[in-house]
């Protein structure tokens, strides 16, 4: 999508302003509730600047004049960044996230801020203070979460491409449910500076779009070392489009972890993986059966580690320095308690669970234990890399479920993340790419998980699936 639009822009078939207006008009007709904030004036100003840049012909990048959407937990200077929470409903950050600043420097146009599960906590995008996001394929179904707005907007043509974030599958799951491509980079690939923290040892910003190439273009712009994030890797900026092309000429040993093909896997999801396996074999790749024996513990580890980090990170929302305040006429403690009652149910649940797991008497039994099993999960991958280059797996055991279907029992939604969580726990890159549809017409995603910093290989394999197995229509109205 991005390259096609770039060509229209550079050959003057369309201007950046016209392109921005095209997407803004589509957003006005949106039925998915993908946007929390639409920044029409700012978008048009950015588009005008992009048109000047294109007219000058200097410093033009693939992203100059391309209309993008940003998940609403990426700080945008002077523009509301709500995290889909009442507690930040009017918060305007005084600075840009590094990923946002880099897209700005490349000349992109920002259309607005995208809906999500509150503080990225959820797998269905039903936990938003601004209403659930609907799946553009079928509005009765969830788009997946937590980057549901980012996925739905890319699919429905409400932005050329988007940024999301992935802590336990929040880019890959909604990509699978909406028929888009979503990449969770290696921990440390993309600076987390200005990404509102949920679980700091797991969070990564990731690109989402209608093609692997769109993700490669966005990743090239946002990845690379940032002195503002001490966990950002000391790696140079790279051209992932070129690296993806090079990686696409190689043959890989691809592992199929037997623990990912268990009971409960929807038949059509299994069949889609089979289709990809056959195509990969035909193309000369080697498929290898492998074992990741601690997979079944990943959800339990995640829901201790992620909530513990969250309870600590979300302590900053206290009604003192920014965000909303309630009970300002009472004592300080009472003000804290009333202000924090603005959190939604899922956020409260996780803060309570995390505070419990870190509390005296339970720390060893929960937090330390979970971190020990986290090591075993990482060791499983380290061992697998001795015999394979990449791992192929489902993204989720099933396709999208109906809105409201699983809200009563949070554990049921948590279990949906069983195939995406391990990559976050081990810090590995993972990509979700559409590989078919089920009998109801709902998209099916497959996942490639790679060694640290193997994003180019994952992008190349995703592109292979697009070219050789299944291609989703990209209807953005051109």
């Amino acid at each position, binding site marked *: 999508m991005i390259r096609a639009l770039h060509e229209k822009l550079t050959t003057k078939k369309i201007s950046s302003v016209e392109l921005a207006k095209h997407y803004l008009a589509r957003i006005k007709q949106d039925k998915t509730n993908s946007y929390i904030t639409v920044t029409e004036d700012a978008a048009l100003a950015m588009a005008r600047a992009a048109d000047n840049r294109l007219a000058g012909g200097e410093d033009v990048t693939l992203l100059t004049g391309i209309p993008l959407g940003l998940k609403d937990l990426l700080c945008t200077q002077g523009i509301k960044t709500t995290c889909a929470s009442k507690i930040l409903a009017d918060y305007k950050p005084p600075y840009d996230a590094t990923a946002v600043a880099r897209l700005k420097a490349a000349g992109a146009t920002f259309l607005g801020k995208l809906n999500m599960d509150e503080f990225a906590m959820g797998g269905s995008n039903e936990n938003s203070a601004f209403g659930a996001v609907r799946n553009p394929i079928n509005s009765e179904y969830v788009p997946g979460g937590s980057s549901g707005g980012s996925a739905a907007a890319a699919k429905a043509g409400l932005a050329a491409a988007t940024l999301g974030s992935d802590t336990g599958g929040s880019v890959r799951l909604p990509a699978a449910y909406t028929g888009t491509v979503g990449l969770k980079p290696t921990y440390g690939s993309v600076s987390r500076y200005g990404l509102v923290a949920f679980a700091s040892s797991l969070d990564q910003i990731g690109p989402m779009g209608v093609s692997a190439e769109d993700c490669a273009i966005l990743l090239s712009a946002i990845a690379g070392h940032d002195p503002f994030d001490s966990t950002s890797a000391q790696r140079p900026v790279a051209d992932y489009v070129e690296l993806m092309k090079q990686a696409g000429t190689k043959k890989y040993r691809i592992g199929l972890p037997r623990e990912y093909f268990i009971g409960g896997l929807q038949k059509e999801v299994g069949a889609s993986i089979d289709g990809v396996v056959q195509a990969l074999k035909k193309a000369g790749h080697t498929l290898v059966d492998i074992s990741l024996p601690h997979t079944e513990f990943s959800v339990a580890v995640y829901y201790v580690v992620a909530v513990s980090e969250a309870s600590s990170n979300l302590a900053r929302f206290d009604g003192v320095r920014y965000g909303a305040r309630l009970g300002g006429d009472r004592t300080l403690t009472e003000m804290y308690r009333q202000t924090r009652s603005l959190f939604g149910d899922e956020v409260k649940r996780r803060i309570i669970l995390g*505070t419990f797991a870190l509390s005296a008497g339970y720390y060893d039994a929960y937090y330390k234990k979970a971190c020990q099993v986290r090591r075993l999960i990482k060791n499983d991958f380290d061992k697998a890399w001795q015999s394979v280059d990449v791992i192929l797996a489902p993204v989720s055991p099933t396709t999208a479920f109906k809105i409201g279907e699983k809200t009563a029992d949070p554990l049921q939604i948590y279990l949906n993340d069983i195939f995406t969580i391990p990559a976050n726990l081990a810090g590995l890159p993972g990509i979700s790419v559409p590989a078919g549809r089920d009998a109801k017409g709902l998209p099916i995603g497959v996942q490639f998980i790679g060694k640290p910093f193997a994003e180019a290989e994952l992008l190349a394999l995703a592109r292979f699936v697009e070219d050789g197995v299944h291609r989703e229509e990209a209807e953005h109205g051109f």
Partner: protein
Amino acid sequence: MSKFGPDTVRKVAELARLQLSDIEVAKFTEQLGHILEYVDKLNTLDTSTVEPLLSPLEVATALRLDEVRPSPGAEVMVSLAPDQLYDNYKVPQVMGGN
């Protein structure tokens, strides 16, 4: 789950400075009880010799030179606060109450 009854939920919510209604306490006790029951499966693994993994990056703390760099300044930062007095954050009464 005896270890995670309503009293535990109330106590932990107090530690986390969260105000919960009785209905929320009842709902969270049940839901979190289920989750903890599920988490208990970790205890089927012997991890006595396993070093905890706290982050995928097992590197020493990153250091940098202690240099003065531009920042938005106190006025800008304090202006974001719900209540302020000059360049200070203004908070309700600290002593007293609970």
